[in-house]
């Protein structure tokens, strides 16, 4: 098969290692994000999912390893550096200011200005455009205070904030953990739409039902190692559960010796 743009990873991590003192959290992690695809990062508590995300966006520095963005080696030293490349994270706590409205939250820290005065109308137009492109239907006004929004609406605003900046890669940390059934549905639809727009989407989740519904690729982490990198169509929930809990399922996964070593 000839290599097209969609086959080439937009973001690729090679042999990432990270230790906190004596604790070796990430072992030779290889991880790739493809444009237009949703990659799910799954794993038990303490498997290293959050650490990996924080390494990607420069909150933590890596001990060793290589990061390629669109095939070029890059060094991401801070969340600002990640944002400059178009890599955005939506954290589980969403990081929204309740006392500000939707537009103010979406532009927080990156306000549009006419010399010194903020251009509120310009920001509102851009925010509404982004929200409309995500087919957000449940929010009445872009000037609504975030304190008046439901959990699902907040999630939507946080995601919209991440894609406002022509982002290329969006990482979502447990986006459905705190949501009800209908709101989970909306959020998963939104995640799918992000990928359909050509973004590389990474979703971190415990919920395998959600993962199988939305992800194209599934990467289970087991004690800081990538157990496998599977296409959704060639795997099933039982296999993923085995990979998450033991790092191995049938003939795929980590070699026995490696497991013992840990």
């Amino acid at each position, binding site marked *: 098969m000839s290599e097209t743009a969609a086959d080439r990873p937009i973001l690729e991590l090679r042999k990432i290692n990270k230790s906190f003192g004596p604790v070796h959290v990430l072992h030779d992690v290889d991880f790739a994000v493809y444009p237009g695809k949703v990659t799910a990062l799954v794993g038990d508590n303490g498997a290293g999912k959050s650490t990996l995300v924080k390494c990607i966006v420069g909150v933590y520095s890596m001990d060793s390893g290589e990061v390629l963005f669109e095939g070029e080696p890059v060094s991401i030293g801070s*969340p*600002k550096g990640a*944002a400059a490349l178009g890599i955005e994270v939506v*954290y589980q*706590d969403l*990081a*929204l*200011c*309740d*006392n*500000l409205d939707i537009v*103010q*939250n979406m532009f*927080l*820290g*990156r*306000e549009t*200005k006419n010399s*010194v*005065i*903020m*251009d*509120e*109308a*310009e920001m*509102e*137009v851009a925010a*509404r455009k982004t*929200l*409309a492109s995500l*087919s*957000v*239907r*449940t*929010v*009445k*006004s*872009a*000037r609504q*205070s975030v*304190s*008046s*929004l*439901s*959990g*699902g*609406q907040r999630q939507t605003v946080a995601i919209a904030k991440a894609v406002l900046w022509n982002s290329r890669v969006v990482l979502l940390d447990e986006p459905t953990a705190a*949501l*009800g*059934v*209908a*709101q989970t549905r*909306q959020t998963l639809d939104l995640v799918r739409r992000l990928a359909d727009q050509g973004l590389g989407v990474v979703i971190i989740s415990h919920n395998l039902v959600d993962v199988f519904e939305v992800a194209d690729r599934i990467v289970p982490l087991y004690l800081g190692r990538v157990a496998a990198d599977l296409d959704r169509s060639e795997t099933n929930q039982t296999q993923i559960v085995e990979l998450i809990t033991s790092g191995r399922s049938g003939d795929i996964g980590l070699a026995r010796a490696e497991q013992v070593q840990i």
Partner: protein
Amino acid sequence: MAATTETESSSGAFSFDERRQTIGSALRDAVLGPPGEMGARPALAGLIALIILFSIGADRFASKANFANLITQATWVMILAVGVTFVLLLGEIDLSAGYTAGVCVVTMAWMMTQHNISGWIAIPTGFLIGAAIGTLTGWLVAKVGIPAFVATLAFFLAWQGVVLQIAKEGGTIAVRNEVVLAIVNKNLSPLMGWVLWALVVIGYLLAAFYTRLNRVHHGLAGEPVGAIVVKAAVIALGWGIGTYVLNQNRSFAGAVRKLEGVPVAVPVVVGLAVVLHMLLSRTTWGRHVYAVGGNTEAARRAGINIVWVKMSCFIMTGMVACLAGMALASQLNSVSPQTGGNDTLLRAVGAAAIGGVSLFGGRGKIIYPIIGGLVVATIDNGLGLMGTIGPIDFTQSGPKFIIQGLVLLLAASVDALSRKRASTEG
């Protein structure tokens, strides 16, 4: 399940159908405010109720002379309350702001009166001291990480000592500087009073129409022209009546000199309020102040320099406190070791809270502490004129403090309850 019903009920609604406001709905919003955002409305209602109450209960309350008195008495409270609003917006507190005012103004007076240094040097020096104190407090709170309550409690004691050292125990330094004395003691000429009135009304109209034009230009719904005109008319009428009354001669019958005009304190407070309002609502710095007060972690992740934002708010409080100190000195024509002491700070914080500035941080506008300051001053002034009713002598400090305390408690309850309502909505 709540989530399900919400989706069902709103699925028919078009996304982002920004309410095209009619004049009626725009004005209703102006009076009642958006849900959960009471703002200064309870304080404004309270102020009107107090004015009616005292006009009936105290015969000298509703007089021309007392109207001017009330404004000049309220000046320092309003200014200091505006000052502490910046740290309150962060969710912090500055207990030392009262004595910061004291240190600034006692230094000013010491330079001018005892060392004959020109006001051109002494007054800027006072503001620099305010800024320096703010920098130090802000650094200790934001960078070193000392809780603001403790850091400013320490400075509350320390600055008190500094004021005592400069003024000497029991000593009073007279203030003769024209500029400082003018704040409370001088009046604008009747003509200038009307010029100020015109500036306020035209300024409001320009600001409102500029915002509307900018929004309409971007294809957004603007505030209806009718609503802007009605609001401007209300401001013009209210301010006009005030100006008219203050422009009448209010000196005692048979006095040689006429006493008329809008007190200089009014343009001072209005100018301060307009500048600081613009800073808070129109600049990114102001936006970041609200963000830090609302969710510090979110602000940090948005790349906002938390330390700088916090420090700058303390600096702002320090500098505005200096102006409040000047108003205090102007009212007393002197400074003493008590300047900025006693209940100065607590009244200012109380005024801000009564006006609707949330002590939890992140909520409040510059107009709130000004309305709150007027409430505090009105209670003080009105009770003083009530005289004795039954067994209670309202001119005494005891009943005054009790009533002010209860009003503050009421305002704090409104703040807490409206937060609760806002968080349970939606």
